[in-house]
């Protein structure tokens, strides 16, 4: 990396025959090729600050707004950030937050796990057997378009307010994104790959295992990521309605007990949990679809 020199000054360099071969009108040095390192650091630093800027600004507003902008009555319902963080610290110190978090995580993980396994299996079957698809599709459409939370009373009535109903509703909510993406993933497998595998004499089972499943994995993972988000969403709502532990319960209970900073601490935890789950699933997704760098790699 040297300082940017005009290419026309060095017509003898063999590396750039295209630029030096004929005089380019007003030859301009290519920007960004030989920038000093410090400048680039500053730029990437500035980029990071800009990227985090909105979040920092929001947190600052949360801290300062209630203190200086809002009337005192509002401050009770919207405590500044430091009070919320203090409440969060107390909850952690007393071990309450961990308990609630563990309860929520167990429920969402079980429901999510059940949903992923059953939806992938059903999705593969539906995508493979056209008759099954024609039979089930209308019913699935009805269920898919019924908001999961609308069914919460049904789940509660039939399964009680215990763990079973919570896990079931999470599984229900997470089921459909995975199912639909699995079906789409299997349907969009390149038929040429199936032909190639068939010409090798592969049985149906190994065709599934070695061609269809790996080819559908990226699409299935998109569904799994969507399911992860919705499983937490639905769980919190379910815990708000009737539960004895969990983050949703923490939030509602704190509100009704007028422990407003505790309530915000719960909300903050939910937000962070959602972020963490999403990042985790994105990471797993990326790991499983590394080969898919070029979109539509089957170039004609």
């Amino acid at each position, binding site marked *: 990396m040297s300082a940017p020199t005009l290419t026309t000054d060095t017509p003898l360099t063999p590396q750039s025959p295209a630029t030096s071969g004929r005089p380019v009108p007003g030859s301009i040095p290519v920007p960004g090729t030989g920038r000093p390192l410090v400048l680039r650091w500053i730029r990437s630093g500035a980029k990071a600050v800009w990227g985090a800027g909105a979040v920092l600004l929001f947190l600052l507003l949360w801290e300062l707004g209630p203190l200086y902008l809002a009337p005192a009555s509002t401050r009770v319902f919207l405590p500044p950030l430091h009070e919320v963080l203090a409440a969060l610290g107390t909850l952690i110190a007393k071990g309450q937050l961990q308990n609630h978090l563990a309860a929520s995580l167990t429920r969402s993980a079980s429901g999510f796990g059940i949903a992923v396994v059953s939806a992938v299996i059903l999705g593969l079957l539906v995508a493979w057997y056209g008759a099954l698809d024609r039979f089930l599709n209308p019913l699935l459409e009805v269920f898919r378009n019924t908001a999961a939370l609308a069914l919460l009373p049904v789940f509660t009535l039939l399964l009680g307010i215990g763990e079973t109903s919570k896990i079931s509703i999470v599984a229900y909510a997470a089921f459909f994104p995975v199912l639909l993406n699995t079906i789409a993933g299997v349907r969009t497998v*390149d*038929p*040429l*790959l199936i*032909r*190639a*595998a*068939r*010409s*090798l*004499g*592969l049985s149906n089972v*190994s065709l599934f295992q*070695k*061609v269809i499943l*790996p*080819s559908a*994995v990226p699409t299935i993972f998109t569904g799994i990521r969507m399911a992860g988000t919705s499983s937490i969403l639905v769980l919190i709502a379910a815990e708000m309605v009737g539960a004895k532990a969990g983050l949703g319960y923490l939030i509602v209970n704190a509100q009704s007990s007028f422990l407003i900073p505790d309530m915000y601490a719960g909300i903050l935890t939910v937000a962070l949990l959602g972020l963490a789950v999403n990042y985790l699933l994105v990471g797993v997704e990326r790991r499983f*679809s*590394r*080969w*898919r*760098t*070029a979109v539509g*790699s*089957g*170039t*004609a």
Partner: protein
Amino acid sequence: MTQNSTPKISLHTIGKTFTVRPTKDAPLGSTLTALDGITLDVAAGEFLTLVGPSGSGKTTLLDLLAGLTRPDTGRVLVDGKEVTGPGKDRAVVFQQYALFPWRTAAANVSFGLEGPGPDGKRLSRRERAERARTYLDLVGLAGFEDRYPHELSGGMKQRVAIARSLAYEPDILLMDEPFAALDAQTREQLQDELLRIWRTTGKTIIFITHGIEEAVYLGQRVAVLSSRPGRLKAIVPIDLGERTGERDIRSDPAFVEHRHKVWSLLHDEVLKAQQAGHAKILPDGTAPDQTPQTLSGKAA
């Protein structure tokens, strides 16, 4: 070429008809005769090229040989035994490479080695990797074992596909316009490589192509198919003498003469096919030209 023993491949009055999906114009659907009464013997170790206009059923014929479809009339025999399905004594190389994008080059090559071999034994992981390396080496791709298909050029992809077909050591190589999607230079290079591989391995090769030059250059015999329904119009034996040294065979008088012979045989058929607006028959048995508007832009 004298054929005293049983031919390697033997086609007896092959016919294949497709049922065309009902369309708006033809609500009852119609039938489409792709191949009609094809009888052809191919000797062991022979290199036969197959030319024909678009929609003359070249790919259909290859599918029959591969065992991907069954003929409606007649029989396909390999080593005197009727072909009832795909088998590892035959390998198919597709125009669009059909590499598995989630597998590296080496993993693609060893794909056909993963099941039980012809002797019922399974190869260990190391043996498979060893074999993959050998065959990647054979096609001139040593050192590219860990590349994913999207990291390879078209010519390299087709080399990998050829290596994959050779790796499980079939007797017969069925090639469906394998070099059609490549640029002229890469194509010529791969043609020579293929001839070299053919000479060293002694495979029986059936090579479908659009290019008359390619057919004459590669084949010991050129089979010319008529326009739809595909019938065997003629078989042109090619004798270009010894192919040693750096001699430019394509400008040799004998080559030009053969090329012209095949060209004149094909010319009428191509005209007929164009007037009828024939296009490629798709794997599901439909042909785009069943609807009046003709799309001739796509290099099929």
